[in-house]
């Protein structure tokens, strides 16, 4: 049983192979704190919400926190604010551990590989991993897995560019960070990460589409802003990757795979192509592919990597 785990800023997702079936779990990475009163307890019990007790407060997890927040008109607290673990907040870390345990089932046997992705901006190499990354890996290890950290860009290429021999550019437009990875034959050559806060754009898009539905206004402003920020992201990535020299390794025309919540917006592929052309990449674009299931695209790439690694380890043991 191999597992791919996608620890995103807004949602935790896992995808595993369970007897030939793909079983997914997901949970919003947020919580809500309400006072421990009889009314709140009765409300949570009636709505079958999952909550914990912390002193005089009740802590509601995941999607139930969002629902109760809307019901009680209270703001939910993001667990990974700006894609980072909370500092000096032990309760938030406990909630994080609970959510990881809820999303990630216990391993059937020791040593099963779990490929996980974390919000962008972390150094994924072992020698330079931050305390946050080690903490997340430890949470995965406590479930009985052997954690392997990969980038979201690599996961996107593994999930979407199998027909291109896992070679191309993988772009993950996360809620807080955007990752552009140069992948050659399933191996990551270079990675560029920038804080883009595209999640706010997604919120604006949903708000604007709602307003457009009400007023009949078109979302030209939003499209223009999104194109602008995508162009800036791609321009920065181009400069960084060209200066690093890794673009010379990938063959042309280059395939591109893109995923993220913002890709579900209507007309995103058109905006993406326009921003790519405006960025002026020194690559001949062969094919751009937007993930068909962006919610589990990264987790599926992690699962593919975990399966490949598992069988590679088996072959090594046999040898």
């Amino acid at each position, binding site marked *: 049983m191999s597992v791919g785990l996608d620890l995103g800023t807004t949602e935790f997702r896992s995808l595993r192979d*369970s007897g030939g*079936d793909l079983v*997914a779990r*997901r949970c919003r990475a947020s919580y809500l704190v309400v006072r421990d009163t009889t009314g709140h307890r009765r409300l949570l019990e009636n709505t079958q919400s999952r909550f914990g007790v912390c002193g005089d407060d009740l802590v509601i997890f995941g999607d139930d926190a969002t629902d109760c927040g809307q019901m009680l008109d209270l703001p939910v607290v993001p667990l990974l604010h700006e894609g980072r673990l909370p500092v000096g907040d032990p309760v938030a870390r406990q909630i994080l551990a609970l959510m990881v345990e809820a999303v990630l089932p216990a391993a059937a046997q020791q040593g099963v590989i779990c490929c996980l992705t974390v919000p962008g901006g972390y150094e994924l190499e072992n020698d330079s991993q931050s305390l946050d990354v080690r903490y997340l890996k430890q949470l995965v290890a406590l479930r009985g897995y052997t954690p392997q950290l990969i980038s979201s860009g690599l996961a996107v290429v593994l999930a979407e560019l199998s*027909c291109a021999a896992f070679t191309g550019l993988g772009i993950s437009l996360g809620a807080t960070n955007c990752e552009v990875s140069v992948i050659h034959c399933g191996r990551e050559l270079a990675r560029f990460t920038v804080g883009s806060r595209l999640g706010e754009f997604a919120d604006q898009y949903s708000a604007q589409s709602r307003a457009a539905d009400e007023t009949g206004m078109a979302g030209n402003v939003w499209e223009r802003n999104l194109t602008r920020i995508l162009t800036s992201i791609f321009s920065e990535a181009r400069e960084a990757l060209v200066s690093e020299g890794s673009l010379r390794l990938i063959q042309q025309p280059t395939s591109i795979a893109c995923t993220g919540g913002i890709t579900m917006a209507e007309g995103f592929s058109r905006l993406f192509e326009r921003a790519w052309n405006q960025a002026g990449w020194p690559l001949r674009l062969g094919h751009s592919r937007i993930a068909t299931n962006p919610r589990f695209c990264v987790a*599926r790439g992690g699962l593919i990597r975990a399966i490949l690694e598992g*069988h590679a380890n088996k072959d090594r043991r046999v040898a």
Partner: protein
Amino acid sequence: MSMHDRSSIRWASRLACWLGIVLVAVISADAQAQGVGSNAKVITWNPAPNGEIFVGILGEIEKPGVYRLDSASLNLQSVIRRSGGFRTEASGTIRIVRQDRVVESIFFSPNANTPLLAGDLLVVESKRAQAAISKMYSADPSLLPMYARAAEVALKGNDPTGIQLAFVNVLDRPVIVKVKHENARLSHVVQMLAQPIELAQAVRVIGPDRLLSQSATPHPVQETIPDGSVLVFPRNAINRGKLPSLPIPYESEIATGAIPSLIGGPSGQSPELRNVGQLPPIIARDGQDLRYAQPPASLEQATIPTPAPAFRPEPSTPNNDRLEIPGPPQIPVVSTPPRIANLPFSGQPRITSSSQMTTELDAAPAAPAPEAIDVPGAPSERVSKPKSKPFRPAIESDDLDEEAPASESATGSPLSSTLMLGMLVAVGLLIGLALLTRRQLERHAANPSKRTPAPQEFSRNRNEVEPEEIAASDEIDGEREISSTPQPEATPIRQPDMALTTQPAPMQMPPSQTSWDSSANPDLLSAWFEQLLANQLPIFDEHPDFPAQVSLQGRIVPPPIFRVDPPASKALVQGPHFPLASQASAGHDEVASQSPPETSQIIDEFDVPHDMGPARPHFMRRRPGEKTIAAAAAARAKSGSPSAPITSTETKPSMTPVTDALRHLQGGQS
């Protein structure tokens, strides 16, 4: 085991448990209704004893009779082939008599494989009789006598020597005999079988034609039986000890002279066919051929000297597994040795030609199951239990075939209930297993990749190039290599062409990567993994598994809350938000740039007298320290200083006129 497997097993086990519970409840209710000592209704299937399978055939067939078959040849075509094929008068329609009734009427097809059951009786219908009877039933009433005569002639058959009759429930197998025309009456037949004459009233006649067999009225005892009729005797009503010698079944594999085309020529054209198809005569107890005997007088004297009371079939009792035929008690029962030709065939068949007759009773083969019948007045030592169940496959009910005596019945009831319970539980388990198997088959049908074992086959050696090697070959170690060769030296990980075809949105492949050779090692990638790569596998959502009771340790750090107030011009009067300052605020930046207001200013802002509207009555006394804005304003107005602090010793406002009126109405009590 996947989640669906577990849920399937769980549902199947639940279903089996509920089915078992329901069946136990039904059985218990049935047992309660039947009483303690009664047996539950048991549906049994009696196979052929000793594995013997007999099938009888009569009518327009070259070699009518009873045939011993094996299970492999138990089909209609085999029987027709063994019996020499149809006569020219055969209409091709065959009726199958099973379970004492006509269960099927089919048109013969030589290429089909029509299964039969042991004990079946086949009646090959005649074209002539069928046409005559049809005309008789549809003719003008004035022409009815003519057609009736024609039908009578047709029903007599074209065999001047006699007519064919089939007996059911006489032996453990069908019996087919040929009797003379003048003896083709129920009374004569019963007497020839050495049975009480009253038994003739209980015999049911299945005519050779569908129209005749549909007659609801019982066949008259003294009326001529049509050729090819089937006489259904009551079950267990035959005293087999008195039966004369009956024809033995045919043993030959294929009838001699059988025509391959299954359609025989007219009788008499082939010497083989002339010889076959004729039956040995019924031999009376004294060795007389019944076919040529004078049956009524002589047989009556021989077998039934005095008329017995009217036959009345009685249901069996627990003490008696056989129907008792009331007979004269003063006549001792002749315990005859078994004469029923029911032995397995050994050596030369006894019936080699129709002319062969059994003239000696003692020469007849010993029957294997001489089932003596309990007769009232008979000595008890002569009573023998049946050694085997009836031959015919039957759905037996306990009220007909209750073979256990009363003592065994009382003790056997719990046993049978236990057996039934076990069977029903087994049936429930089988149903659950069938459901599981069906689900598995559906899953395999939906996802055939599970039949292929091989996730191990999509290892990296599919292209015989390890990724490490690829990485080493592509390692950035020289600027020359990078700049000179835009194409990587290492062969990329390739996929079968099938993966390209199964992509939901096919991509344009780079030209350099079209060298994928699926024929080199086509089974490296499993189909499941290909579907995973192509994002074609369905994803099943599962709820995150949070623990039920969670206690978090520590102190919750309140998150930073940013409040942005709208401008005062847009502030709603009835809303919960009030401007923090009297000046219009454009946003949080301007608010942050301002100095925080003093607490006294906020209080003063709150204490500005507003238009409170008409005074409302207050029926309750205020609690100590309770203040209202109006009261504070009144107090300040009274003190003369608008910024005077509000203390808890504020004076209460005066009563309103309405309050005073209410107090007056209530007698001075609030």
